[in-house]
């Protein structure tokens, strides 16, 4: 009996045709991990109460608006915007709340002043109630920012001229509004 067997080498070099996708290493394409942060602003918290208390507005001896009116500024702490932003200040004249009729000759019922919001932008935002236009009332910040905003009022004057006396009223009121907004 004759038996023919041939022992062969285990791997044949050059005879295997390997599919092009096969490899001993495989890697994913990079898996994106994504999310968004909205552009938002928060005005922070107002330290020292929410009212500028000016007290008695007039010199009781003359009846004219005091020339030494002043008050401590208010601070908004923890304000931030996560993107470029604008800060704007709007103020309304300090007006008699009970005496709303047209004052008699020689009298006024309103006080003009300047409201300033500083600390946010290099140039403070300023609004003067006596002005017809207010180009400086809106200022821009070019990047995200966090910081304190100082709101102050000053530069008081009698509406109609300082020769007018103020009508009596236990309540005179003005309003300063500071707005932080994300810029387009």
């Amino acid at each position, binding site marked *: 009996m*004759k038996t023919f*067997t*041939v022992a*062969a080498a*285990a791997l044949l070099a050059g005879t295997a*045709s390997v599919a092009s996708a*096969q490899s001993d290493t495989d890697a994913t394409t990079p898996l994106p991990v994504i999310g968004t942060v909205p552009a938002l602003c928060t005005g922070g918290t107002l330290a020292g109460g929410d009212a500028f208390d000016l007290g008695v507005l007039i010199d009781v001896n003359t009846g004219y608006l005091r020339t030494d009116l002043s008050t401590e500024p208010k601070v908004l702490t923890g304000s931030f915007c996560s993107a470029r932003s604008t800060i704007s200040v709007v103020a309304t004249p300090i007006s008699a709340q009970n005496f709303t009729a047209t004052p008699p000759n020689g009298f006024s019922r309103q006080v003009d002043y300047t409201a300033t919001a500083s600390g946010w932008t290099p140039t403070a935002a300023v609004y003067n109630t006596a002005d017809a236009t207010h180009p400086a009332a809106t200022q821009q910040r070019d990047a995200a920012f966090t910081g304190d905003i100082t709101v102050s009022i000053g530069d008081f004057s009698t509406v109609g001229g300082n020769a007018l006396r103020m009508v009596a009223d236990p309540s005179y009121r003005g309003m300063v509004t500071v707005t932080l907004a994300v810029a387009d």
Partner: protein
Amino acid sequence: MKKTLLLASAVALAGFAAPAMAQSTGTVSIDGSVADRCLFTTDSQTISAGELAGTDGKLDTSKLDGQNRTLVGWCNGTAATMSVEAQPLLNVDFTGTLPSGFNDRVDYTATATANSLDATDDSTVAGAGTAVNVGVFSGDVKVALSGSTAGGNLLVAGGYQGQVLVTLTPNVSFGAP
């Protein structure tokens, strides 16, 4: 000087009649026989299937199914039979426990065809398949593979080797002398 030349001859002398006598005839019969025998006249063959797995890591059945090689042989007796044994392809490189989901052998069916008769064997069953009575023939013995399988599992990397054994058995056609 006499030289004697001796010619030794192993050849029998047939039909030698006694010389120089009265004519008489002797008969010498010649007996011979031809034993039942089978023989392959070609060398062994090799099927190199190359990379057995597809891109999914499982057996690509097209690598083995349909592969064939032709041997040449003959048998001179009517009782001659042919059988084939399919031995699975086994991984010759991997040692250790076979992990779940993998296989390290490839099974298949081998068919040998001689004198228009088929002998088959399945590699999952040890030993050769049933023999067929090919009888007296001389010519091609075609060996073909089909039905390859790795059980649907991934194949462990490495070299794989198996073989198909074809046996021609003459048997005894006319009984013992």
